[in-house]
């Protein structure tokens, strides 16, 4: 069986600046993959490329065996990829619950929107996710009034609510304290098995807490792949990245 996601020799060229060079990568269904690398390594560009926000200059992307390289964004989403943005991409004037309901909406035809009723099944699923992300007591407040960490969890909840097969989480712990980071790692691990998850981050304590198969990106190219421990032990990775990242985190 083909893997859930396969990038084949993807290159992205921004007017002469190569953000990604010849990147290949596969991800199996319901698996976890961690993507690390220093600033400007091309992590976010990789994410953008998968969901069709940036078009590759060369190479192709297969999802469930189908080439999605040329599809419009909403078509890619419909096939089951959902992304969490670096800055929280929540809908600030909607309540927490409305955020989840909008994300979890099954029938997306606009002409079905002229009703105040929500199917019981969707409601139940949203309540369930609300519990998973631990925001039950913030259910009806506008998302804008959440604390920073809560916004990140809400967005993870929204991504989960779409029931996508592949979740792209771009720096889910950006700006979080150690305690919240730990909770986020637990939250993500609880998703594995139901979704495949690709996590982008550079906080090593978080990466270690996730402890999954890791790919290191450097200057738009894959530098190394392996378990967190293997990456830890790699001299080349240490040289370009870990040493600096340690300083950053500290």
């Amino acid at each position, binding site marked *: 069986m083909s893997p859930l996601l396969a990038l084949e020799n993807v290159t992205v060229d921004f007017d002469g600046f190569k953000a990604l060079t010849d990147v290949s990568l596969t991800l199996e269904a319901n698996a976890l993959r961690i993507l690390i690398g220093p600033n400007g390594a091309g992590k976010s560009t990789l994410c953008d490329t998968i969901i069709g926000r940036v078009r590759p200059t060369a190479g192709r992307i297969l999802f469930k065996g189908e080439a999605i390289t040329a599809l419009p964004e909403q078509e890619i*989403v419909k096939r089951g990829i*959902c*992304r969490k943005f670096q800055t929280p991409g*929540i*809908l*600030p*004037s909607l309540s927490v619950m*409305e955020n989840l309901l909008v994300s979890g909406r099954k029938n*997306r035809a606009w002409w079905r*929107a002229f009703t105040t009723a929500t199917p019981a099944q969707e409601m139940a699923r949203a309540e369930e996710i609300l519990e998973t992300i631990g925001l039950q007591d913030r259910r009806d407040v506008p998302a804008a009034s959440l604390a920073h960490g809560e916004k990140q969890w809400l967005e993870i909840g929204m991504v989960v609510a779409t029931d996508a097969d592949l979740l792209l989480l771009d720096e889910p712990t950006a700006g979080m304290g150690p305690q919240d980071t730990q909770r986020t790692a637990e939250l993500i691990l609880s998703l594995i098995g139901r979704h495949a998850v690709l996590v982008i981050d550079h906080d090593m304590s978080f990466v270690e807490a996730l402890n999954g198969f890791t790919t290191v990106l450097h200057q738009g190219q894959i530098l190394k792949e392996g378990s967190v421990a293997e990456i830890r032990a790699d001299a080349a990775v240490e040289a370009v990245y870990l040493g600096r990242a340690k300083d950053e985190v500290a």
Partner: protein
Amino acid sequence: MKPALPITLLVLVLGAAAPWLISAYELSLLGRFLAFSLVALGIMLTWGEGGILSLGQGVFFGLGGYALAMHLKLEGLDIANGDMPDFMTWSGVSALPTLWRFFVNPWLSLVYVVLVPGLFAAFFGWLVFRRRIGGVYFALITQALALAFATLLVSQQALTGGFNGLTNFSTFAGYDITSQGAARVIYLITFMLVVAAYFALRWLLATRFGTMLRATRDGENRIRFLGHNPLPYKVVAFTIAGSLSGIGGALFTLHAGVISPALVGVVPSIEMVVWVAVGGRGVLWGAIAGTLLVNFAKDEISSALPSLWLYALGALFVLVVSFLPGGIAGMFSNPRLPPRLLRRRQEVVE
């Protein structure tokens, strides 16, 4: 925020009783300002809830107004025998243009009042939104549209009456519309339509459509990456606003007895936005209150101190937007739109 039930009832009773409470002149003012408030409700829907700022609502107002006015000009004419509206004579027209033949039937014309601005808004909105043109770009394009529309009306004198516009109506479907009794009936129709529009929009905003529209305003890209297509929500909201403006324009034409290019161009269109800004862009009743307040103030101030009015209007734009983004309604508590939300960087173009 919804006003408390007793206040709602009081306003409804006072509004319905107005023809017997105030003078004929005051009633005519109230009637035409209520007609304006339908436009404001539309702007509230698109701008307040949808984040789409149109500086060209005068176009739809004009389409509705002209649709009705064209019919009213044909009432009582013996079209079969070559009768034409008076302005066509001095514009050098020899036979009634085909376009005008669509407006012979009074009831069909009423349908056009809703349909023509609605369909034009839908088409225009679709053309622009589908290329993801929004924010400031959309505001500028709609302003250019208002200019082009007013210019076109003036230049196609043989079809539109040109700069003079269309005036001097006497009957609708055979009924005299100039008498004092008719003025009361027209007022009551206006009032009922405003009330109906208010409650219809209140319902609409409570539906999932309302949620999706706000979601589109909050993060158009976000909902796109959640698998929703924001286009229909924007187009539908803009279409409803267009139809509401059209109905407002038709009612205004009845109240004022005139529709002309001076009422549909760049300046009137942007003034319409200020009614909503003053009233409160996040609250439905604010749009109506703002329209009535600004227009009654204009009526009072501009007669006494015409030069002051323009300073006042200019200052109103600057001050309300800078210091009172929630408008009058925003001064009352408003849980739906926390103040910081209004400070959010609005989407420009993607």
